[in-house]
């Protein structure tokens, strides 16, 4: 299935809004990024300057589905997921790399989606918390999701998607061999509710059970 996200904008109101945004962003660009615009003007690209540096075509696979998108370079992967694609399972805690709430996997590696621009991931595969369970309402949860439920690995749940994505990374990297090792390699995920002990127990259980993550 091909998800061409701009299809959603196929009504007149949206188009008008997009044109307005384009123009106003061009004005912003004129006042704020002179060298780019001067360069564009020199190359007689002035009218197209906005398009030239505003939107970049981006192909990504997210949770197994291919997407073709058009995004501004300044959009972080986190904002793309949440604001454009409605994948709000990935949380914005701090937006500065300090809390781990935005953890996703990029080509299988746990990373922070708030500290990377979406355009930097052309052709790569992103997995979010929404991509872990089997599809459908009866779909089986991922073993780490089940372990978090069994061990009460959360209270408010805000940090949980990030904790679970990070925990899977921790297990795959073989860094879950003792409670101390789990604590060290999960230290990038802050839980303001303080569910840490249960999180460590959940991860240790999956490790002990030897399930494939």
């Amino acid at each position: 299935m091909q998800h061409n996200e701009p299809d959603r904008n196929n009504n007149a109101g949206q188009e008008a809004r997009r044109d307005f945004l384009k123009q106003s962003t061009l004005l912003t660009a004129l006042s704020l990024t002179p060298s780019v615009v001067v360069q564009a003007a020199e190359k007689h690209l002035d009218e197209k300057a906005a398009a030239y540096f505003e939107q970049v075509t981006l192909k990504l696979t997210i949770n197994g589905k291919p997407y073709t998108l058009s995004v501004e370079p300044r959009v972080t992967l986190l904002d793309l997921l949440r604001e454009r694609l409605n994948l709000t399972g990935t949380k914005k805690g701090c937006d500065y790399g300090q809390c781990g709430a935005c953890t996703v996997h990029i080509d299988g590696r746990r990373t922070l989606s708030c500290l990377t621009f979406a355009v930097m991931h052309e052709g790569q595969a992103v997995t979010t918390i929404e991509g872990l369970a089997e599809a459908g309402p009866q779909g089986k949860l991922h073993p780490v999701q089940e372990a978090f439920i069994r061990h009460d690995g959360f209270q408010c749940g805000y940090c949980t998607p990030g904790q679970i994505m990070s925990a899977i990374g921790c297990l795959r990297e073989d860094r879950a061999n003792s409670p101390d090792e789990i604590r060290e390699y999960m230290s990038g995920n802050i839980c303001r509710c303080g569910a840490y002990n249960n999180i460590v127990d959940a991860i240790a259980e999956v490790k002990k059970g030897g399930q494939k993550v």
Partner: protein
Amino acid sequence: MINFQYLRASSPKSAIDGVRTDLSAQFIAGGTNLIDLMKRGITAPPKLVDINNLPLRDIADEGKTIRIGALALNSTVADHSLILKKLPLLAQALNAGASAQIRNMATVGGNMMQRTRCPYFYDPSLPCNKRAPGSGCGAVAGINRMHAIFGLEPVPDQHVCIAVHPSDMCVALAALDATVEVWGPGGNRTIPFTGFHRLPGSNPQKDNTLQHGELITALRLPDNALATHSHYLKIRDRASYAFALISVAAALDLKGKTIQQARLAMGGVAHKPWRLTEAEQVLIGKPATEATFREAAQVAMRGARAFEHNTYKLKLAPAAIVEALTRAAG
């Protein structure tokens, strides 16, 4: 964040050309430092050149040296069998930095280029000569708990900048005699690691000696006999995921109990990773005992000077040196 022009470079040459032609353009690698600074309005490059597609990720044994590509991820380097076997100090220092997720994004070149974490640098409403030259240093008479004790100007009220370099990896690289391979508009050159970062002098806005448009392509680390006895000690406000208050990279080559060679460097104490060559000289030829380590620590602290909130570093630093050497020898 203002928008910017985005270029994905396909060769080192196109990357260098892309940055060279625009004085405010910057490379972007992992993005973990640059995007943070852009979000906070500390820097606002109108153009970013993405270097992630360049073939600079390899880690290779070249016989007498190990070459690490500038785009190798911090986690890849820390987990690499060659590094664990021959340069465990580097692996330890890398693993002491940031978090598992950030190490999966951060590159070796980006780590070297990361800016200071001084709170005055980080807040555009406060004075900072590094961020806004001429605005003054807010830290000298402000909250200077994290700040430098070495490499300071001789006249106390002339401090232009007392920020420290925040990297853990770089402390190990300074100790291990790394060299930096750089390609640029003016050709290729090699910089000894201890000459890569600089002291603030009168232009603290420059953290290092890299010229605009120059691209770090690799690090080279010479073979050494220090792998069995090395230790990276990091002291911070919490057990993990915090920058160093003080860190020490220590490595020894022991014959029996006698020290043949020694390497010692400190982080969190100066505008650059601080190599302690005089203290190393004290260690050579002596037995690896606490008395020897104390003597070296005393020599290491010569010239140190503190401010209102970081006087604790004058005690913590020598204690950390003794501890790191003890663990390295053990």
